[in-house]
């Protein structure tokens, strides 16, 4: 499908990603101070309570920033929200389009049960009130990838309201102090995704792919309870983990399954909130915090220089590292909301209100979904701390890295090594290697079994810890070899034979009479030197403590 080029197609997209409340100011009285420091650009940690603008002697003003988020998560389901078309990423263009998705006249929406269940489950996990009755509305705007000319959403009465999202930020010098914060959730609504426009500027054409048109979205609206990029990014990351744990969304930002818009304003503490801007399409985890912080900084700069903040829509230019206004010729758009007449109110039940004799296929029982709630990330972290004595900040790292928790659990299952040891190896050596080579956990050449085996060797003192590191490096290079194979190939196993080690010690002592003399005189450095010499002679395969024992025995005899 192709359309003539949209005039200024790079203008504000108002569709799936638009804001819900129309006011231009945040509706919250008191702001929590942003803890971002004045210097930014890197992921600044929340430390100071307020932003201090460049110190200019007197007239120094403190600024507080307020950040609210609208997050669109694609529901993980086999079919679309209102049609039977399949949902699949990167399918050939327009291969997953039903008559309804293409808005053929006469077609009607039929609500997908799975999407409703996903919304209810997400609402429950986020401590929302689930509305037993919710309604669908049409939101109108013309855009080439919105075939019906309207999006079906839940403007008046959404499926879930008044929840909260708890997320934790690590603060302190070593980022070892974990502080829990809460962002209130205004609502969660079910709505349709739009299609995709591909702009071919050479031929001055817009190509339309409707595969995504009609896919179910959860729009999660977070109240402006955050105060800097890092907080927002952490909240989004936590939501992402929750959605993934629930299985209600794959929430993969790179595949567009999680998309974020931020509402940002700054003000002086104690004064009314400032005019806000909306930064749209923050669709990369990498740039989320940076975009928000740069917008906060821009607003402060504007105000400090006596300029005003316009209530406008902006986007983040990752090359420039700052937000730029989205040119929006049409001005304020009126979406002309109207009830969707083809969908009756969505009614949900709990066990108490379930009509007797109701067909389970026809009704959704909130209590049943509550029973099916899986362990949430916060519970998983708590479990890690309790069961393995893990530090809280380590439990965050384990969960934040995709696939790392599973990796950790698999290693634990197969090793006799201490959990603390496992944690330390995974966070320091394993994760370090991954980062260094820019790999994801599932791309790691080292399997959980291999690491478990390595840790077992270490645990039963078959190898020294420096040998273990060597083996680990070797595992990284030579895929397919087991740790034991590497140990025997490289002859890295510790000498378990006391007799043999005794012989080596004797031989080395005979070779170095001066060192022996120094030892006998009680020079404390001499014994260490001798241990080193013996270790060298054993090609590092002997345990230094054992060597020391032997040497001491020989000296005293």
């Amino acid at each position, binding site marked *: 499908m192709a359309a*003539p080029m*949209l005039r200024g197609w790079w203008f504000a997209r108002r569709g799936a990603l638009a804001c819900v409340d129309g006011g231009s100011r945040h509706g919250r009285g008191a702001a929590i101070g942003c803890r971002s420091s004045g210097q930014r650009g890197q992921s600044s940690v929340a430390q100071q309570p307020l932003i201090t603008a460049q110190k200019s002697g007197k007239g120094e003003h403190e600024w507080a920033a307020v950040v609210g988020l609208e997050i669109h998560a694609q529901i993980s389901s086999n079919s679309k929200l209102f049609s039977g078309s399949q949902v699949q990423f990167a399918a050939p263009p327009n291969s997953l389009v039903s008559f309804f998705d293409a*808005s053929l006249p006469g077609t009607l929406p039929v609500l997908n049960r799975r999407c409703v269940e996903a919304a209810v489950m997400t609402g429950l996990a986020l401590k929302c009130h689930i509305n037993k009755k919710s309604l669908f509305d049409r939101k109108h705007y013309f855009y*080439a990838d919105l075939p019906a000319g309207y999006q079906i959403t839940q403007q008046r009465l959404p499926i879930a309201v008044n929840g909260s999202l708890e997320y934790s930020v690590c603060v302190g010098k070593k980022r070892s102090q974990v502080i829990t914060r809460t962002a209130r959730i205004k609502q969660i609504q079910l709505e349709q995704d739009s299609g995709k426009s591909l702009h071919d500027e050479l031929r001055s054409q817009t190509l339309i792919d409707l595969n995504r048109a009609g896919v179910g979205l959860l729009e999660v609206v977070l109240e402006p309870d955050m105060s800097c990029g890092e907080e927002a990014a952490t909240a989004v990351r936590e939501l992402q983990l929750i959605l993934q744990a629930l299985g209600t969304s794959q929430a993969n930002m790179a595949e567009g399954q999680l998309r974020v818009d931020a509402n940002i304003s700054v003000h002086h503490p104690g004064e009314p909130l400032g005019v806000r801007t909306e930064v749209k399409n923050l669709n990369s985890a990498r740039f989320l915090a940076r975009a928000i912080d740069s917008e906060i900084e821009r607003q402060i700069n504007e105000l400090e220089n006596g300029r005003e903040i316009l209530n406008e829509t902006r986007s983040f230019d990752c090359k420039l590292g700052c937000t730029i206004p989205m040119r929006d010729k049409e001005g304020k758009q009126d979406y*002309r909301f109207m009830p969707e007449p083809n969908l009756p109110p969505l009614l949900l039940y709990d066990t108490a209100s379930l009509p007797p004799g109701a067909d389970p296929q026809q009704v959704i029982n909130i209590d049943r979904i509550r029973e099916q709630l899986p362990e949430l990330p916060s519970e998983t972290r708590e479990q890690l701390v309790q069961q393995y004595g893990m530090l809280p900040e380590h439990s965050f790292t384990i969960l934040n890295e995709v696939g790392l928790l599973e990796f950790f659990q698999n290693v634990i299952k197969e090793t006799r090594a201490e959990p603390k040891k496992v944690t330390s190896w995974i966070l320091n050596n394993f994760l370090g290697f991954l980062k260094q080579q820019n790999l994801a956990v599932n791309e790691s050449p080292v399997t959980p079994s291999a690491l478990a085996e390595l840790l077992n060797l270490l645990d039963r003192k078959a190898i020294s810890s420096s040998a273990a590191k060597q083996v680990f490096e070797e595992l990284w290079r030579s895929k397919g070899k087991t740790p034991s194979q590497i140990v025997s190939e490289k002859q890295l196993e510790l000498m378990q034979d006391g007799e043999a080690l005794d012989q080596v010690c004797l031989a080395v002592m005979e070779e170095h009479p001066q060192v022996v003399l120094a030892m006998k005189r009680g020079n404390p450095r001499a014994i260490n030197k001798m241990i080193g010499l013996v270790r060298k002679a054993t090609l590092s395969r002997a345990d230094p403590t054992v060597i020391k024992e032997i040497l001491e025995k020989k000296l005293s005899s």
Partner: protein
Amino acid sequence: MLGRTLREVSAALKQGQITPTELCQKCLSLIKKTKFLNAYITVSEEVALKQAEESEKRYKKGHSLGDLDGIPIAVKDNFSTSGIETTCASNMLKGYVPPYNATVVQKLLDQGAVLMGKTNLDEFAMGSGSTDGVFGPVKNPWSYSKQYREKTKHKAHGENEDSNWLITGGSSGGSAAAVATFTCFAALGSDTGGSTRNPAAHCGVVGFKPSYGLVSRHGLIPLVNSMDVPGILTRCVDDAAIVLGMLAGHDPKDSTTVQDPVKPFTLTSLTDVSKLCIGIPKEYITPELSSEVQSLWSKAANLFESEGAKVIEVSLPHTSYSIVCYHVLCTSEVASNMARFDGLEYGHRCDIDVSTEAMYAATRREGFNDVVRGRILSGNFFLLKENYENYFIKAQKVRRLIANDFVNVFNSGVDVLLTPTTLSEAVPYQEFIKEDNRTRSAQDDIFTQAVNMAGLPAVSVPMALSNQGLPVGLQFIGRAFHDQQLLTVAKWFEKQVQFPVTQLQELMDDCSSVFEIEKLAAVSLKQ
């Protein structure tokens, strides 16, 4: 054979008196002879003959699919028909061939019905005359009937005869004319404010609007989703009941259809109306109502009363707000529903390719007529943020009041309401177009419109010929989902009044014998 009712011809098919192919060919030949009426936009001759042939095979094997097998039907051109152009009488959809069948169409085809073609209408069903479609107006067959010609001979003298033709009413005028001229045995219309009942009354046929939610709208190109229902046009009440029996019930593709299974039913013949309570809404006695229609209405009420029914005056106090309320709700939904016609996925697209916006604007300007564009404009005005509360929300509240009027009346013990269908009999086209579409729709929907607001079943039954020799229909309104009871009362009434058959011999000489004989046969075969 053509003059028979659906049930009679169905019996004849089963008995082998006629084959489906013969029947289909007779209808096709009549369609050609009545082409000047402009009742059909598309005649699906090839498809029809093929379907008839298949039906014939089934009859030969003794495996007929039921009462509709081999029966010629017609479908209003706003129902999607797979592989057959569906235009809504609009430039916007000229050449649009849907890839799927509307549920109601599919159900008829599954029963072995033979689709003769797609019938004419006002563009996107917006109108009450069947005069505002891109393919031109539909002419009322009664314009050419012996009955009308005889009465108006003196008036027509000296004038060009053809300029005096009458409108069919609308917007399902093509379907009404198709049934009235025997080119099919039943036709689908749609009814949003009276679009099935109004032309039925003007063309002397039965026009039935089922309860909202009883019959699937899937595939019906919408006017007002919350009021649209597929309508049924037939030559007698029994036939409408047969077709309803085939169409009614839940459709997984239409979430607004009833969940409960609908039991198949056959209409009983009422012998005793003494337990019936008939309501006469006093608000329907308006100054615009022609004295002739009013007197026929009284006559009908007297008929019930004389047979022992209780006939009482009732009040539907919010009736007068119905039209203005409808205007707001209708145009708002129209503005929304028409948004999809942007020239991208299907339908008309202009040549302008400067930008997508320019393409949208030109496509929609070229694709829609003034009536559609006017309604889109008003609807978008009512939906603006600053107007929504004052117009749309208020109109919804008024709608609730109107619906409650009916609930109250039915709760007070009334079984069925009896009202006129239209203000007068059909008027000449030249007369009709003196007023614009909006004015006409507002006038002509006055007795039919409130029913759609309330989602009730209603049926227009032809009662008698006016002094001019033109049909006058009366409307029965029933309780929601009491469609069967409603049709039973209508059937009793139909039997009492013995409405005459159109006499079109002057125009179709070679068919005259058919009508002469069948007119009698039709009466005598009724049980």
